């Protein structure tokens, strides 16, 4: 023991020496503060977004009546004599795209999730999931190109009355875009249903289908609904597909065969055109952007609420 003693003391001294070194102690104190500042950037970004939108929207409402904006059914900002700013046609356009997309994506997405989680073997799953990830990673401008040059001509050959720019084609393609999102989030929810529940049903003589529909689906419902709500949010905010393939004719009707305009596509139309800085049209994109932001924020918070509030813990 006597031999170890001097060594022990020297280690302790070493530690004492080290921790007293000014620079080291200084960095130890400084680093968390720097990192805290870095972490605040994400909060600043949100503040920046909200502040920007509110500030410019307020400027817009000094020139345009807010009630006319919220309840107006005519959106003609480019009219020479009396431009009108009623946002409802743009909201309706967005809802058309979102509705069609959900009709396409929810059945296919959930069916894919059931197949991957309940029927597919490990090998099949490992083959298909990366491909779905690729589908999710395709840039939206590519989907827009696909809608305009492939889906629209097919729709027109089936039903010739459809215009070149219409709601149907981009709606379907937005649906295709969000399939991977619904499929993978729903599959996660289904996979986390414990096997004991499945085994119980099998022991009672249930078929795979009955297990999937009567046991797994209800148990994973909160996750599936949350994934759908998130997908709706994505569809509402989708920009390039509609900017390319949906046209630029805002209308207050439920026709899906003709040219429409969504909130996102309007922002693109104005920013690619030459509406000068400081004009009413320039400020209108912020009012539209703010409306869009509130829509998507509401959907995201709803999704978080659903998955928190209704999650079944096993």
């Amino acid at each position, binding site marked *: 023991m006597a031999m170890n003693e001097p060594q022990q003391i020297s280690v302790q001294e070493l530690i004492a020496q080290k921790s007293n070194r000014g620079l080291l102690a200084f960095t130890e104190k400084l680093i968390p503060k*720097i990192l805290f500042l*870095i*972490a*605040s950037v994400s909060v600043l*970004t949100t503040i920046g977004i909200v502040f920007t939108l509110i500030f410019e929207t307020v400027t817009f409402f000094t020139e345009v009546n807010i009630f006319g904006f919220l309840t107006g059914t005519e959106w003609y900002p480019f009219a020479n004599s009396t431009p009108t700013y009623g946002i409802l046609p743009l909201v309706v356009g967005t809802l058309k795209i979102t509705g069609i997309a959900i009709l396409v994506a929810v*059945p*296919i997405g959930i069916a894919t999730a059931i197949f991957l989680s309940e029927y597919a073997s490990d090998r099949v799953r490992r083959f298909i999931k990366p491909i779905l990830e690729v589908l999710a*990673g395709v840039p939206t*401008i590519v989907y827009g190109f696909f809608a305009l040059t492939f889906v629209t001509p097919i729709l027109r050959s089936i039903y010739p009355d459809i215009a070149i720019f219409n709601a149907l084609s981009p709606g379907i393609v937005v649906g295709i875009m969000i399939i991977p999102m619904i499929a993978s989030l729903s599959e996660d929810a289904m996979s986390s249903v414990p096997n004991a529940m499945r085994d119980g049903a099998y022991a009672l003589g249930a078929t795979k289908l009955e297990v999937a529909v009567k046991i797994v689906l209800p148990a994973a419902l909160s996750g599936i609904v949350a994934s759908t709500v998130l997908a709706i949010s994505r569809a509402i905010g989708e920009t*390039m597909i509609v900017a390319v393939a949906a046209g630029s004719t805002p209308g207050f009707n439920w026709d899906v065969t003709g040219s429409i305009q969504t909130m996102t596509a309007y922002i693109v139309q104005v920013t690619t055109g030459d509406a000068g800085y400081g004009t009413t049209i320039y400020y209108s994109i912020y009012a539209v952007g703010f409306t869009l932001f509130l829509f998507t924020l509401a959907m995201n918070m709803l999704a978080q609420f659903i998955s928190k509030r209704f999650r079944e813990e096993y």
Partner: protein
Amino acid sequence: MKFVNHEEVAAKTKTRLTKNTLLKGVFAAATGFGLVVLAILLYRIVTQGSDYLSFEFFTSFASRIPENSGIKAAILGSVYLMLVVAPVSMFLGVGTAIYLEEYAKRNKFTNFIKVNISNLAGVPSVVFGLLGLTIFVRFFDLGISILAAGLTMSLLILPIIIVASQEAIRAVPNELREASFAMGATRWQTILRVVLPASIPGILTGSILALSRAIGETAPLVVIGIPTILMFTPDGIMSTFTALPMQIFDWTKRPQVEFHDVAAAGIIVLMGLLIIMNSIAVFIRNKYQKRY
């Protein structure tokens, strides 16, 4: 007493099994739908664009004549853009992740940051464009420059990088940290020499995937107002520029069908870039990621 009517059960079992087989087919078909769409999409783009894909396509500028159109300015612009986005977004993203995982106390503000990040991930990219236009282009007066667009894109992919880095840092087992502390290392030394080296493959994988999202993103660039026809290449981060997805958007919008084929050629290049980036990410994940 007879509780089970065997005849009835046998009769029902048959329809139940048929239903099962039938629906299995339906589910498989739905899964196949995604794969088929992807195959058609790739096939269409390759057959449409391959005629215009030549060496000159990479070395010439955009033009009013489809045959002379090229992506020289666009591809260099995209590369420059990534040179801004990669360091900025990784610095902010990894820094935030380290703070949240290693330093943050469990209090309301930390929770607020986390909720804020997940909400930020759901903000449409076009709204980020409005942010960039107002704050970077006008307020900080950076103009329609690579820097302004790069900062906007960095904020757009920041949530993805933060979440990926958090997961990578969380995957480093506490035993490693404790071993480092036991050797007398301070917290920052432990992070710098133990935690980060162990989590760097995961961080890189996530960051490359996030960058591949940024390179295909179009909407913020449109809103910021970057031009589509440029006859020069960028000469610095304050230079104005155009980018590959922006160029594709411009060609797709044109009424002449020939330009759609040029757009398809541009898409082949863009998808090629994405495949390369994704392969690198998968390679890093498979080669360097350790499981503890």
